[in-house]
């Protein structure tokens, strides 16, 4: 299969050159300018807006997958207590107002007069039921959240106000609510888990019409929606997993919007006169983890800085990422709580790196193994190779150990790696949670440091994290998290951030489509405007 995907990333001309098909080249070479005849779009034919995405929806059970590709689809049909707008800001949805009462308790005022697609009224019982369902291993990939809930209770009747109590303090609880969808208690209990995973009933702006697996998901506007009705009335989502086919469908005018232009076909998409290309930094940062046990060279802060400074990130972005990435000085992205504008990258400086290594007593360098996936992130294997070459210039001899994600992601929670490449973004937009999974000292009982694959430990940073958890006031807590972030990145060099990936979108020109890419990369049809 490797071959298949290599070929699909090539540009049309490069592809023909490599395969050396003389006859094919003649046939296609003469036709590089698309024929001008009418390319009727499905959207024009029946006013249906068609979006092509790279990953198919897996299930219509809103807790059945925590992959963003699935949450994105669900966000059209279901709603959480809260939602996020196109800039990533948290906004009211099924709850109109919310506060953190104390460390464990969150209070929500529920929206009145909301109905599910089947006509049932939305009540506080549905909220209670939904959080219970999230805790069931057979139907939920949100176990961590579901099982952290202690109780959901009603406080007052009009407006209906509820308290959600968690078992331990979860400062980012509200930040996660845009993807914890509320289901209808009555119809979910009445149907089997299999049926529920086929036909979703939510409160969202779109109601479910049909799902043909592997082919399309059709939605139509929910005229009983509590908010302003979306401009797109009929929507279709087409999963086109094969990158070159996805782009071909865009070029042929079959789709109105397309997500994920393959890096190597990017120029071809830009040259297409019928397509507008839009990009924005993705939420996902790529970074390197590094062991700091006392018998390991990188326990010395000078060695950590030397490695950081010996990596030429601008070169990686230009040569490996084809400029489809932006440098990262930290793991969180701007909408994430704890992101700090004041953090800067250590600049690339080979002389300084050599000097630091000399000071630390490693003037002859040392051997290290860099582990990473080769099928998970954009150009992941190539990034690792570039880093190995760059570090060899300061006599650090890097042995590469790249492998398929299915194997790599099983190795991570064993905490045995020395130096590894990983990508991360936090679904709850909270650096506190990111820290607890990536940098915090490993504590299996409490689920801390799950992806801290090099067993990194900085007890004084853990202390700051602990303090931040006890702060109820969101502004104060954000300050504390920014301090934690700055110390981890600049003082301790807990990890070496590399870059943020880039989300790429292609939009059909001339159809009046007004589209702003969201930070989470979701396709929410209600966010898309159509100029008449």
């Amino acid at each position, binding site marked *: 299969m490797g*071959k*298949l995907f290599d*070929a*699909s990333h090539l540009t*049309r001309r490069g*592809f023909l050159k490599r395969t050396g*098909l003389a006859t*094919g080249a003649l*046939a*296609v070479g003469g*036709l*590089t300018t*698309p*024929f001008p005849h009418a*390319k009727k779009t499905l959207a024009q034919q029946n006013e249906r807006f068609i979006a092509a995405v790279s990953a198919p929806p*897996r*299930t219509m*059970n809103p807790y*059945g*997958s*925590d992959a963003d590709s699935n949450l994105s689809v669900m966000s059209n049909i279901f709603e959480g207590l809260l939602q996020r707008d196109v800039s990533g800001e948290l906004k009211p949805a099924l709850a109109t107002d919310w506060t953190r009462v104390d460390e464990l308790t969150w209070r929500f005022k529920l929206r009145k007069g909301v109905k599910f697609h089947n006509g049932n009224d939305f009540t506080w019982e549905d909220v209670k039921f939904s959080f219970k369902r999230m805790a069931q*291993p*057979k*139907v*939920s*990939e*949100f*176990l*961590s959240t579901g*099982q952290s809930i202690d109780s959901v209770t009603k406080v007052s009747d009009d407006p209906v106000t509820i308290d959600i109590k968690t078992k331990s303090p979860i400062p980012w609880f509200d930040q996660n609510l845009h993807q914890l969808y509320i289901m209808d208690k009555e119809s979910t209990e009445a149907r089997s*888990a*299999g049926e529920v*995973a086929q036909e979703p009933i939510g409160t969202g702006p779109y109601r479910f019409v049909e799902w*043909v*697996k*592997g*082919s*399309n998901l059709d939605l139509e506007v929910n005229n009983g929606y509590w908010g302003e009705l979306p401009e797109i009335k009929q929507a279709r989502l*087409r999963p*086109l*997993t*094969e990158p*070159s*086919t996805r782009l*071909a*469908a865009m*070029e*042929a005018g*079959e789709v109105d919007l397309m997500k994920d232009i393959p890096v190597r076909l990017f120029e071809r998409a830009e040259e297409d006169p019928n397509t507008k290309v839009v990009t924005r930094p993705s939420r996902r940062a790529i970074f390197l983890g590094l062991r700091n046990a006392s018998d390991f060279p990188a326990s010395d802060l000078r060695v950590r800085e030397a490695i950081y400074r010996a990596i030429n990130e601008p070169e990686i972005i230009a040569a490996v990422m084809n400029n489809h990435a932006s440098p990262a000085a930290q793991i969180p992205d701007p909408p994430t709580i704890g992101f700090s504008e004041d953090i800067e990258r250590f600049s690339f400086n080979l002389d300084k790196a050599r000097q630091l290594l000399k000071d630390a007593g490693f003037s002859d360098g040392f051997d290290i193994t860099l582990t990473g996936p080769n099928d998970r992130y954009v150009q992941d294997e190539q990034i690792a190779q570039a880093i190995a070459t760059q570090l060899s210039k300061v006599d650090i001899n890097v042995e590469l150990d790249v492998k398929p994600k*299915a*194997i790599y*992601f*099983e190795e991570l*929670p064993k905490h045995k790696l020395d130096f590894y490449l990983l990508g991360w973004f936090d*679904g709850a937009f909270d650096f506190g*949670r990111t820290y607890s999974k990536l940098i915090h000292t490993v504590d*299996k009982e*409490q*689920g801390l440091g*799950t992806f801290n694959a090099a067993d990194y430990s900085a007890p004084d940073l853990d202390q700051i994290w602990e303090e931040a958890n006890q702060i109820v006031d969101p502004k104060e807590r954000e300050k504390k998290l920014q301090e934690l972030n700055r110390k981890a990145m600049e003082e301790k060099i807990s990890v070496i951030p590399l870059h943020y990936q880039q989300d790429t979108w292609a939009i059909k020109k001339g159809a009046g489509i007004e589209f702003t890419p969201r930070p989470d990369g979701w396709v929410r049809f209600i966010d898309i405007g159509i100029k008449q």
Partner: protein
Amino acid sequence: MLTFLVRRISQAIAVLLLISFIGFLIFQFLGDPAVAMAGRYASQEQRAQVREALGLDEPIYVQYFTFLKNALHGDFGQSYVYHADALQLILDRLPASIELAVTAMVIALFFGVVLGVIASLNPRAVVSRFIMSGSLLGVSIPTFVTGILFILIFAVNLGIFPTSGRGNVVTLFPGWQSNFLSWDGITHLILPAITLSFFQLAVLLRLTRGGMVEILQEDYIRTAWAKGLLTRVVVFKHALRNVLIPVITMVGLQLGELIAHSIVTESIFQWPGAGQLLLTALYEADRPILVTYIMMAAFFILVINLVVDIMYALLNPKIRYE
């Protein structure tokens, strides 16, 4: 005949058992499904809960026998990814795969035989040489290359056919949606069917030509020419009929493989068939789907082989299975 049948069927069952066991073992190494299914932020304990809920905490041989026991009742387990019945998921996708494979086979058979006959009548003519070198290309160009070329030429540049997908299908009967009943469905079918047919077409073409060249030398054909029969009658009635026997056998044997092996074509044209489902399942380490699919493919191939063997005996009295 009866002893033969009993022996062949018991052999087939043994093969199926072996395949299920090997499949079960190999896919153990695809990674732990509980890691993904408990969610990104789950603790070790929550993963253990998922393993328990799926029965993955049992020793492997217990898991295997549970699987066998359920499979005998028609229950091949739930897909880890879709949380739905694995067999049903595959059966839902099967009509798309079968329609694609059958169409490809019809195209391959028709053009294979016609071109093969043309190439055999006058082997030294330019047309014949062109056809024969073309068939070499058909055997040697990988499917993904032809597929992508076809999309670029006929869908993107010429705009004659849609790039991908199945289009508007019409329900033939419950559980079977068909491409054949709407114009949109037919246009969606053409490019992938031609792509998938390429290899088979080349094989059938060479088989027909080879047989024809040989048979045209036979005495009874010379007699036919000498009697002054029409070319049409000699070629189609006397020669081709005899050539078609091995060709049809080949078609039967290849059909099962076409259905099982159309993964690449389905992936390029995003054809929502069983092959595409298998590919996704591989990436997601969805073991129930993988094992079920492989068992089903093996089942098809075994059945077709058995039927071909029986047909032989019925059609040709010289063959006896005793």
